[in-house]
């Protein structure tokens, strides 16, 4: 174990623990933009800097391992000065349209400016001026709001493995983009939307949420994705019984927050007026709504009259493993092995 002192309090941690994690253990808050324990630590945003005695410069606590006997201060004037300068610089290059920004209320840039009392920037001068990328049906990329924390880039490379976005250019012109700055639609992006979840600011916005409500107006509902047998956990944002946002559920052991395009952006059918909500039975050439009881009776009746050699079953990829298991069990009991699955089509 390694023992160190943070703001005068002693703490013991496993070797390899970062200063930030050690501080968390003590309940000491350190702000961060680019830090995510599931991704490579890059030390890019410098919001998490702290003062370590005898070190020449401020130290990024998110990516620096705690050292034996280290004496750390997280809230000195020097630290605050650097964090304020950092926020000041970010604001100088960020559109201040919080009133209409989708991210308001859930934006870390806003939160930290509030925390450090930064209401406007000290610097005038050039700002980024990029066009929107809304080439795809799922989310908008507004790189004018990007603070270049790189979380989306790392998520796409390290979690998804697609690597659709990366950094281009240098210095002030640095930008997150797909190869050749093409629209995302023309890149290898699979629109899993995981980058959207990690973005700390309003640079990546799901189209389904635009104008649909502020975070504090939304209820969160945990559910399981209806699309396939994997059973990813989802967190729905719901307002007035309408789904206005979907995120991966990080507490789900199945997907730990990861999703694919269908679960994330494909739940629109739930609210479709054409969605079937009760069974249909063809009567005199017309499909007519019926009750479950009537429909199931009809199926049972027909099964009874069918010889097993004439029977086959087609299961759905949207059903869970357990449901599909029961389905094949049922058909085998009825004497047929002819069972197939729509995912093959």
């Amino acid at each position, binding site marked *: 174990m390694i023992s160190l002192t943070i703001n005068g309090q002693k703490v013991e941690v496993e070797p390899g623990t970062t200063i930030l994690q050690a501080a968390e253990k003590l309940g000491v808050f350190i702000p961060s933009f680019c830090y995510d324990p599931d991704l490579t*630590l*890059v*030390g*890019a*945003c*410098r*919001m998490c*800097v702290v003062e370590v005695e005898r070190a020449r*410069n*401020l130290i*990024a606590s998110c*990516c*620096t*391992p705690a050292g034996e006997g280290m004496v750390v201060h997280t809230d000195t004037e*020097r630290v605050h*000065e*650097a964090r304020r*300068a*950092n926020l000041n*610089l*970010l604001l*100088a*290059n960020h559109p201040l349209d919080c009133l209409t920004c989708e991210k308001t209320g859930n934006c870390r840039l806003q939160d930290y400016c509030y925390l450090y009392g930064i209401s406007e920037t*000290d*610097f*005038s*001068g*050039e700002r980024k001026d990029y066009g929107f990328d809304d080439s795809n049906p799922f989310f908008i990329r507004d790189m004018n709001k990007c*603070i*270049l924390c*790189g979380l989306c880039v790392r998520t796409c490379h390290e979690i998804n493995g697609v690597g659709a976005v*990366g*950094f281009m*250019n*240098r*210095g*002030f*012109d*640095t930008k997150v983009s797909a190869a050749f700055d093409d629209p995302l639609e023309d890149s290898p992006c699979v629109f899993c939307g995981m980058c959207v979840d990690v973005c700390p600011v309003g640079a990546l916005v799901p189209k389904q949420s635009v104008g649909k409500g502020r975070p504090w107006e939304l209820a969160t509902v945990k559910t399981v994705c209806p699309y396939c047998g994997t059973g990813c956990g989802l967190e729905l944002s719901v307002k007035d019984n309408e789904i206005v946002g979907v995120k991966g559920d990080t507490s789900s052991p199945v997907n730990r927050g990861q999703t694919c395009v269908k679960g994330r952006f494909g739940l629109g059918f739930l609210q479709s007026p054409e969605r079937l909500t009760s069974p249909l039975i063809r009567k005199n050439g017309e499909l007519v709504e019926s009750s479950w009881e009537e429909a199931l009776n009809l199926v049972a009746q027909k099964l009874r009259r069918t010889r097993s050699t004439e029977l086959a079953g087609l299961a759905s990829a949207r059903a869970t493993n357990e449901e599909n298991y029961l389905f094949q069990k049922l058909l085998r009991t009825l004497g047929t092995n002819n069972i197939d699955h729509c995912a093959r089509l």
Partner: protein
Amino acid sequence: MYERHILICAGTGCISSGTISVKDALENELKKHNLQDKVRIILSGCHGFCEKGPIFIVYPEDIFYCEVQAEDVPELVEEYLIKGNVVERLLYKDPTTDMAITSHDEIPFYSRQKRQVLRNCGVIDPESIDEYIIRGGYVGLENALKMDRMGIINEVKSSGLRGRGGAGFPTGMKWEFAYRSPGDKKYVVCNADEGDPGAFMDRSVLEGDPHAVLEGLIIAGLAIGSDEAYIYVRAEYPLAIQRLKTAITQAEEYGVLGENILNSGANFKINIKEGAGAFVCGEETALLASIEGERGMPRPRPPFPAVKGLWEKPTCINNVETLANIPLILRKGAAWYSTVGTESSKGTKIFALTGKVNNTGLCEVPMGISLREIVFDIGGGIRDGKKYKAVQIGGPSGGCIPEDLLDLPVDFDSLTAAGAMMGSGGMVVMDEDTCMVDLARYFLSFTQSESCGKCTPCREGTKRMLEILQRITKGKGEPEDIPRLEQLAAAVKDSSLCGLGQTAPNPVLTTLRYFRDEYEAHIFDRRCPAGVCKELLSYYIDSELCTGCRACVRVCPTDAISGERKEPHTIDETKCISCGACFDRCRFDAVKTK
């Protein structure tokens, strides 16, 4: 038997001023006079005095001709080689006394230097391993092969050698970390990125004495227990790359590189990796990322490369000049090596001396020499009899040193204490006509465009500092700009991820420290004391000199100039935008600035 050897410098500088045509002309002339068997032509490495190139030295007499062009060759052959009359007009002339100097040792530019690392540059044929060996080459390697790893490391440690790549980290200690770091595979990397604008010592060593760097690398490999090295060299150095490739092939043929080096059982392979030439790729972790095929962006340390470097293996990274010192230490011993230099900085350092001095070029001096000696003795003082103002040391990451610190001994620690740094050894001398605000602006524009964009303080902070400096040099500075700059500079220095951002504010901080009055003059008096910042100049017409030719009237974009033909004109200050068009146009020097 040759009676004479002629060395023509074939460094990049001299090649661009005509070496190849001089060599062709000389070959022709020698044939014409049937001297081709008596005189041997050698294309040598850089002599460091590129400004006077092409350099042409005749041995054994050691006659130093400079700025020789192809058309001068017939005269040199006819008059000197045949008749024995020195061609005076092609000799070097001392800028202060105007006396011609024949021998290269008597030229003050050379006589005050201590050429240890550059001992072979300009002396041997860099494409010949034999010439390197005759001058004591690969003896250091032989000695190292007789020692154990800690033996080599201790020798380097006690030599006191510190890294020449910028930070001055003790080389032996770095080797020991890499040696003690557990790993089945280890790498040695030579940093030949040389991104400081104006610095070219590493290029000159690679071009002029490539085997010295190879020998240093092989010894480093032996010391830390590595069998493979990378040389990361920018693609803009094609000649250096070609000479390195030749040297690697020769070293392999001679058995000092490759499998079973000199029958010792040790193996060593050297790869060359060409970089695309980004300043930040000289930073060691960005350099490693670049070799791995990633975008050249620095990574946080720890882990240090000695623990987790190239492909996560323990890696020792050293600069070209650092490595070129190693063969000397292993050949002559640490005790010999440490006789030169100061208490904390041993050996010599090569500087690229440029700017407003009479002699510009590469000079190698003992650590601890004063700046005054470099600027006034080696550099021959300030050009055109102007006044010294400052010298910028350490390139864009360094700082400027004013006149009252001229007696500062040049070593790692005193430069850092003065707010500058050794850096890679760029040295730009400025005279009274240099505006220090404009200078800071220039360096900031460099660091801003070279920032990798990864971390906020450097990416955004250098941009805002640059904008403030631009504003001040345009006469739009605000009184709050000075404290704003100071605050920002402190935050960028204190919280940036890598050395680029941590040092980028240095030019601003040192100019503010030593030349604050110039900032104030720009901001409060709307005046540029050096007369550099165009927008701050005001123009008037000297009525004695003006002929009334109306040339200026036609170029003025704001119709600020009026006057009758053939009568003196005047400038309406309220309309003038200080563009300087009239100043450039007037043939009678009648337009003046104040």
